[in-house]
């Protein structure tokens, strides 16, 4: 039985019992789930504004990609207008992918995820709050920048609302899909390549419908159908992605 530790492992000398006192443990002041989720969201937002470099990086990337096309292809507005949906969406997809790596990495590193998992709150909700913060910090700014990029590609102002709507809704789906990939690759060093490999195929429907919606917005066609499909993807993501990401985070903590 050499495998069974030292004898002491099994036998513990009982200590004198302490007099029980009337103690109110915190269990009775458990923070409501929404408060906890709001704190998790506020923490991520505050941290993001403390390290603005990380915040600006994907946005700068998006601006650069969309600005290189007119220089590389031709300054002819008619041609640029034709490729604008593809340029905008490929740029947005890659920019959101770039930001994904930061979604859980720091929290895994400094033990925050561990504390979330042990907080007695629903990890799914806390992960959802984190993903929401991530969208507010990358998806929403991308949606607001997209019209500027579109205008520089010769798109008329009439298309702006449609473009903002499609990028805003589509990026919700991208953030949520990405959260699963980011959680799954948590235990891996230099996970960037694997993360793209996992996330890109799942993101393709968003790219396809997003680009279609943007194209219809530019040509003035009815863009409700692709927008609704994007919204459906986002809703599917909201309901399922946090569950999957939370499960993946739990596994990574083991």
């Amino acid at each position: 039985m050499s495998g069974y530790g030292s004898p002491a492992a099994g036998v513990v000398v009982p200590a004198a019992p302490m007099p029980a006192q009337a103690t109110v443990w915190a269990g009775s002041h458990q923070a409501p789930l929404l408060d906890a989720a709001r704190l998790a969201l506020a923490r991520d937002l505050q941290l993001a504004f403390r390290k603005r470099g990380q915040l600006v990086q994907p946005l700068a990337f998006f601006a650069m990609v969309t600005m290189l096309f007119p220089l590389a292809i031709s300054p002819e507005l008619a041609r640029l207008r034709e490729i604008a949906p593809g340029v905008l969406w490929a740029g947005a997809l890659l920019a959101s992918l770039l930001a994904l790596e930061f979604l859980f990495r720091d929290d895994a590193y400094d033990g925050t995820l561990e504390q979330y998992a042990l907080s007695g709150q629903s990890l799914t909700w806390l992960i959802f709050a984190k993903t929401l913060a991530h969208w507010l910090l990358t998806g929403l700014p991308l949606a607001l920048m997209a019209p500027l990029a579109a205008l520089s590609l010769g798109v008329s102002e009439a298309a702006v609302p449609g473009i903002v709507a499609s990028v805003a809704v589509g990026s919700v789906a991208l953030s949520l899909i990405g959260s699963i990939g980011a959680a799954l690759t948590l235990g891996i060093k230099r996970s960037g390549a694997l993360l793209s490999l996992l996330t890109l195929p799942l993101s393709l429907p968003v790219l396809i419908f997003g680009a279609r919606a943007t194209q219809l917005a530019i040509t003035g066609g009815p863009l409700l159908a692709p927008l609704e499909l994007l919204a459906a993807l986002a809703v599917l993501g909201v309901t399922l992605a946090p569950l999957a990401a939370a499960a993946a985070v739990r596994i990574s903590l083991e």
Partner: protein
Amino acid sequence: MHDERLDVESLHLWRGDRHVLRGVCFSLASGECLQVTGPNGSGKTSLLRTVCGLMYPEAGRVLWEGRDVRSDLRTFHCALVYLGHEPPLKADLSARENLRYWIGVRHRFGAAALEDALERVGASPWCERLVRTLSAGQRRRVALAGLALSMVPLWLLDEPTTNLDTEGQQLVGSLIGEQLSRGGMVLAAVHHELPASLRELRRLELA
């Protein structure tokens, strides 16, 4: 709520082909402290992580108030706080902000309780500074303030005295003493003996 009790029944844990925990058994009742000792790599941290449910043991059970914790992890987690060997702090937030978020996610507390906890660990003079500017010992003290602030019956501490000066180590001792005297329990993995001032001290030696 005075029958809090932790029972650990013959835990076996494998990491790859290493048999880390080999049938560890112990139980903790209200007001008891158990210090887990053993050489590096003997599984002290694994034991704590298994007890709190982060790791899944291959065999054995952890019982909280007589019920298997796997059947209701949420309730068990509400009753415990786990402090790993790195304080779970954000480098870009101040000590005070860190505590507000970290413990606030768990339960509600008043502003006065927060100030008391900071005062208790001697963090009041520098609680507005970003954690990245604090020394390792100061960070450890912030983590201890979190411990003092979270009023839960079970503390799981991994090397709580690391990086602390003599006075800080005594602080750990007195925090544990208070926890025990209000009927709490402490399970601590330690290298250095906990201060001898604690009378209710038992030891579990891992091989």
